[in-house]
Every structure is written in structure tokens, then in C-alpha cells.
């Protein structure tokens, strides 16, 4: 028997291998730690994430390289998305430490599962075969279900976990069904071969291919949380412990974007017109439903969930332009979204303490009187989500919308702008509450220094990159082989 991969191929997988080895190692080490020493697990986890991120950062290829018999692709998009995923997960864990300790579930498994989820995301991002995409997705989902359910004394968390599990399984089923139909028609799971097979397929296969495509798009929409496949999002976001919500809402979206790009753009580019229309529909529905229903929410976690749905709508706008600059704009959007989502849920964690969740909008009343610095950070986050200049969120929306207009979908851009203006209302309402309403709570905000630094940095990054958006934008543009403007 001969091995079908070489040493140089294994070095491409070095980040994944490092992450997996460290996750297993941490699992073993953690078993021998007492509760007081549990911080070591946390430190090792964070060290692993940083180390892996560095490995990714210093190995950005200029051209796509395939490895492991074509199951694995290493290209600039993979490297960029992996780097940001690792960074976002690192940040999410920074927010988690105090929250988990206060609620007595500061456990090693939480971090180990988080690492495995990250590994799943990296596999998805680098997947070049429908089989690896599916396996990566399952690795991610399985870890996430468990993380949601881990807080066993919380009934809402168990309910959320159950809903997430059932609907997630349904989505995986739909995705698999789509994959099986496509495989039946083309006889291949490899994305390059798939693209060729679809291009050369006879006309009578077209209906069948579209049929499979519908299932694939539904499966992807489920995972992204796009309307009308969004029903799980608000319930899971609200029910899960806030640290887990933070985790689910940020990094996995980067991976979901990656598989969207891999399947639709790399694998099914010949069916472009078909999926473009599907994405337009998903995008309009998501922007509309997300923004309109968010207004009615009194629970901040739920409101941010609907806001996520709306953001997914905007994210799809870039992909559906079917241009390289559009993809770059979408990638910019998803990275920005992940940063904002981190901050938004991070603020809820900051204001919460043992036995009290600051998850209602009214909990933010008069935050300015209690602590003007955090009120300022929250204002930055909300303005950015609403898309007000000069915050980062504005540039994200602008870049996506300008691409939509350039490709001639002016009506779509108009709809997107109208919904963005409607959406601004509920973000601004929070700012109003923080600055112009009397505080109901007078307790000073207590948080460990690590948390304070992380959340302040989060807000300042959004402000700073908002003032100099070209740094991030040119990164995204060069990823797709475009020179920056």
C-alpha cells in the first residue's frame, strides 16, 4: 500500500494537526487538574489558539495548493478566514472566563469542545470536497450542541440545545440529500471535478442539478440562519448561556461563509443564474424579517439574534453579485460582523453577574451614569451595527451595497438601504436608553481586568478600523487576487 500524501502536504495541514493534538493534550491534562487549577486549561487553550493563528498567518499561499488527494485546499481565502476564526474564538474565550466561573461551569470540556469546534470550522474553510465540508460541519455542530447543553442547571439552555440539535440535524439531512443528488448526477464529490462535470452535463440533467442545488442552498441557509430557515436562531441565541451564544454567533459564520463560497462559487459556478436568484430571495427576506422583528424584541439576546439574521441578508448581497470584488466585500462584511457580534454579546456578559443576566434592553438604562466608558463602547458597537459612519459596520454595508449597484441590481440596493434605515431604529433605541434614561440599577460594574481590556479593545478596534477601513478591506481584496483601491 502506498500513501497518497507527502510530507509537504502534511506541513500544509500543520495548523489543523497542531490544534487537534493540543485539544487532545488539554483534554488529558485537564482530567488531572483540580478546580482551583482549572485556569491552566484556559491558558493552554488560549496559547493553542494563538499558536495556530500564527502558523496560519505565516503561511499564506499565493496560489491554491491541494493536498490529501484533493480533499484539502490551501488558498489565500482559507488562510485569511482561518486566521480570523482563530482570532474571534480567542476573543470569545476571553469573555467567557469570568462568566463561566461565576456560574460554576468553568469546565475543561467547555474549552476542549470549543477547540474541536474551531477545528471543525478550519476543516470547513479548507474543504475542497463535499465530503470534507459535511464532516467539518458535523464536527462543528456536534461541539456546539454540547456547548449549548452543558449548563445543565439551566432549563432554557436544555430547551435551546434540543431545538438546535433537532433543527441542526434536519439541516444536515437536507444538505446531505442535496449532496447525494448532485453526486448521483455528476458522480463526483470533489469540487473541481464537480464544476467540470456540471459544465459538461447534458441539458436534460439541468433540472435534476437545480433540484440538488435547492437542497444544498437550503442546508447552507439553515446553517447561516437566513430567512425562511432562521427559526432556530432567536430561540437558541436567547436560551443558550451568553458565552455560548457569543461563540455560536461569531466564528461559525466565517466558516459558513467559506462553505457557501466553496460549494456555490467553486463547485457550482455553471449554475450561477440559478443560485443567484435563490440568494436574492434569501437576502431580501433576511434583511426584512431580521430588521422588522428585531424592533419588537425586549430581550437583547433575541434582538441581536434578529440583527444577526439581518446581517446574514447583507452578507449574501456580496456573494450574489458573482464578482470577485463582491466576494471580497462579503468576506469583509462577515469579518466585521463577527467582530461586532463579539462586542455586542460581550457587553451583555460584562453587565451580567452571578444570578443576574443583563439580557433585557432595559438593563442598559442609564449605563452612562453607571459607567460612561462602557456606555461609550456600547455606543460604538450599536452605531457600527446600524451602519453609521465612521464605524466599521458602515464600511461593510457600503462595500457590499456598492458592489450590488455596480452589477446593476439597483432595486436590490434600495431595498437593502430601506431595511438598514428601519434597522437603525432599534440600535439607536439602546443608545437612547443608555444616555437619556435614568438607571434602574446603581451597582457599579464589576469585571476582571482581562474582560475590561478585551471589551475595550473590541470597541476601539471597531472604531479604529472604521477610521482606517482600507487596512482590512485591502486584506480581503488581495485574498481574491485583486489590488486594493
Amino acid at each position, binding site marked *: 500500500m502506498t500513501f497518497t500524501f507527502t510530507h509537504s502536504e502534511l506541513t500544509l495541514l500543520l495548523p489543523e494537526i497542531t490544534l487537534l493534538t493540543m485539544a487532545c493534550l488539554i483534554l488529558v491534562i485537564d482530567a488531572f487538574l483540580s478546580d482551583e487549577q482549572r485556569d491552566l486549561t484556559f491558558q493552554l487553550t488560549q496559547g493553542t489558539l494563538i499558536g495556530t493563528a500564527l502558523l496560519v498567518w505565516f503561511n499564506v499561499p499565493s496560489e491554491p495548493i491541494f493536498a*490529501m488527494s484533493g480533499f*484539502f485546499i490551501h488558498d489565500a481565502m482559507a488562510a485569511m478566514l482561518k486566521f480570523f476564526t482563530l482570532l474571534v474564538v480567542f476573543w470569545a474565550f476571553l469573555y467567557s472566563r469570568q462568566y463561566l466561573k461565576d456560574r460554576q461551569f468553568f469546565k475543561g470540556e467547555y474549552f*476542549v469542545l470549543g477547540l*474541536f469546534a474551531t477545528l471543525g470550522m478550519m*476543516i470547513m474553510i479548507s474543504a475542497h470536497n463535499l465530503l470534507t465540508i459535511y*464532516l467539518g460541519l458535523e464536527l462543528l455542530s456536534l461541539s456546539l450542541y454540547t456547548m449549548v447543553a452543558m449548563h445543565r442547571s439551566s432549563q432554557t439552555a436544555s430547551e435551546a440545545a434540543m431545538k438546535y440539535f433537532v433543527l441542526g440535524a434536519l439541516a444536515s439531512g437536507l444538505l446531505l440529500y442535496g449532496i447525494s443528488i448532485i453526486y*448521483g448526477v455528476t458522480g463526483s464529490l470533489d469540487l473541481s471535478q464537480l464544476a467540470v462535470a456540471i459544465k459538461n452535463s447534458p441539458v436534460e440533467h439541468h433540472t435534476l442539478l437545480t433540484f440538488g442545488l435547492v437542497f444544498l442552498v437550503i442546508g447552507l441557509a439553515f446553517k447561516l440562519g437566513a430567512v425562511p430557515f432562521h427559526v432556530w436562531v432567536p430561540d437558541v441565541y436567547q436560551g443558550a448561556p451568553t458565552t455560548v451564544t457569543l461563540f455560536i454567533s461569531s466564528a461559525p459564520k466565517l466558516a459558513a461563509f467559506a462553505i457557501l463560497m466553496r460549494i456555490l462559487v467553486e463547485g457550482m459556478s455553471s449554475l450561477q443564474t440559478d443560485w443567484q436568484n435563490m440568494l436574492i430571495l434569501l437576502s431580501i427576506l433576511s434583511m426584512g424579517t431580521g430588521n422588522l422583528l428585531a424592533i419588537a424584541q425586549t430581550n437583547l439576546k433575541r434582538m441581536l439574534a434578529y440583527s444577526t439574521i439581518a446581517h446574514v441578508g447583507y452578507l449574501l448581497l456580496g456573494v450574489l453579485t458573482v464578482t470577485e470584488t463582491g466576494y471580497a466585500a462579503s468576506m469583509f462584511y462577515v469579518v466585521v460582523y463577527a467582530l461586532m457580534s463579539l462586542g455586542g454579546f460581550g457587553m451583555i456578559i460584562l453587565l451580567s453577574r452571578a444570578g443576574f443576566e443583563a439580557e433585557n434592553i432595559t438593563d442598559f438604562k442609564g449605563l452612562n451614569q453607571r459607567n460612561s466608558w462602557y456606555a461609550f463602547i456600547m455606543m460604538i458597537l450599536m452605531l457600527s451595527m446600524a451602519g453609521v459612519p465612521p464605524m466599521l459596520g458602515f464600511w461593510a454595508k457600503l462595500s457590499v451595497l456598492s458592489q450590488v449597484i455596480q452589477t446593476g441590481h439597483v432595486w436590490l440596493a434600495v431595498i437593502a438601504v430601506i431595511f438598514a434605515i428601519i434597522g437603525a431604529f432599534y440600535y439607536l433605541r439602546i443608545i437612547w436608553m443608555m444616555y437619556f434614561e435614568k438607571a434602574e440599577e446603581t451597582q457599579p460594574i464589576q469585571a476582571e481586568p482581562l474582560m475590561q481590556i478585551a471589551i475595550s479593545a473590541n470597541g476601539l478596534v471597531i472604531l479604529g478600523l472604521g477610521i482606517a477601513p482600507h487596512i482590512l478591506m485591502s486584506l480581503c481584496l488581495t485574498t481574491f487576487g485583486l489590488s486594493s483601491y
Partner: protein
Amino acid sequence: MTVKLIFYLFAAILIFAAVRVITVRNPVHAALYLVLAFFTTSGIWLILQAEFLAIALVLVYVGAVMVLFLFILMMLDINLAPLRENFTRYLPVGLTVSILIFVEMTLVVKVLSKPAPADLPAASSNIQLLGEQLYSLYVYPFEIAAVILLVAMIAAIALTLRPKRWSKYRKPEQQVNVRRQDRLRLINMPAEPKD
């Protein structure tokens, strides 16, 4: 010819067993019908020259999974009557879905009707072919699947293992070391005055 006859016989038994799985009232009987279904499937696989898969199905599913499943069913003592009540209510939906799936499958098979694969040479080894594919070409997905199983194991333990303080049990090593002072406390009390 005989192969075809055997196939149709097995297929008929398989469909019968599969239908019985969801129609019998007793869950234990349903499990037993499922065993029959698995066994018949493995027979069909043998006809298709997939010996290894056939044997694995019998060993893993019939031998291990279903036996475990039967144990659980017998221990749980679940009353399935309320679950069955909705059978007719969900029947239309279920039937629609099944018919749709059937139509789709026929579509795929009809459109693509490819020639049947050639017979394998007599000396070929199923396991060897499978192993060569699995451990060379498919080694990357194979390893990921292994990681998924590891995560499933961690998840199951993390969700069900209760910390010690929640369960009550004796600690004999501490019981035998008990001293008089641990159980008995002597206190000084003023003697009660006599009436």
C-alpha cells in the same frame, strides 16, 4: 436466475420487515423486526459481492447495536400508546414525503441509468479494496470522522457525568476510622434542682 430469485425473496422480506418495524405495537417486536431487516439487507449485500459490509452489518448492528437497543427497551418500560395515537394524523404527511422521495429517486436512477459494474475477479478481497481506499485516498475524511467520534464521546460524558456531590454513597474507609469524638459530644450541664 437463482440470484435474481433470491434477491426478490430477500427484497420482499426486507420490505415486509421494514413495514412491520413501524406498525407493530410492541417496541420489542419492532426491534426484532429491525434485526430481521438488517439481516436481510446483509444478505442482499452478499449478493452484490460486498462481503465485508454484509458481515460488518451483522456483527455491528445485529450483534451489538440492536442487542443494546433491546436491553434499553426492556429496561425503560415505555408506554407507546400515546405515541401511536398520532400515527394516522401524521400518515398523510409521511406518505407525501415518502412518495416524493420515491419519485426523486426514480428520476435520478432513470436519467442516469448507468451500466451495472462488472463482476469482481474471484480472488479479489473486499476488505483489502476497502482498506486501501479508506487508508490512502480517504485518509483525511477518515481521520475527521475519528475526531467526530471523539467529540461525541466527550459530549456524552460531559453531559451525563454528575459530579460526586450529587450522588450519595458510603465511604467505608472513613466509616471505620470514626472516633468517639466525631459522634459523641460531652457537655457540662448544671444538675437540675430537685423539686
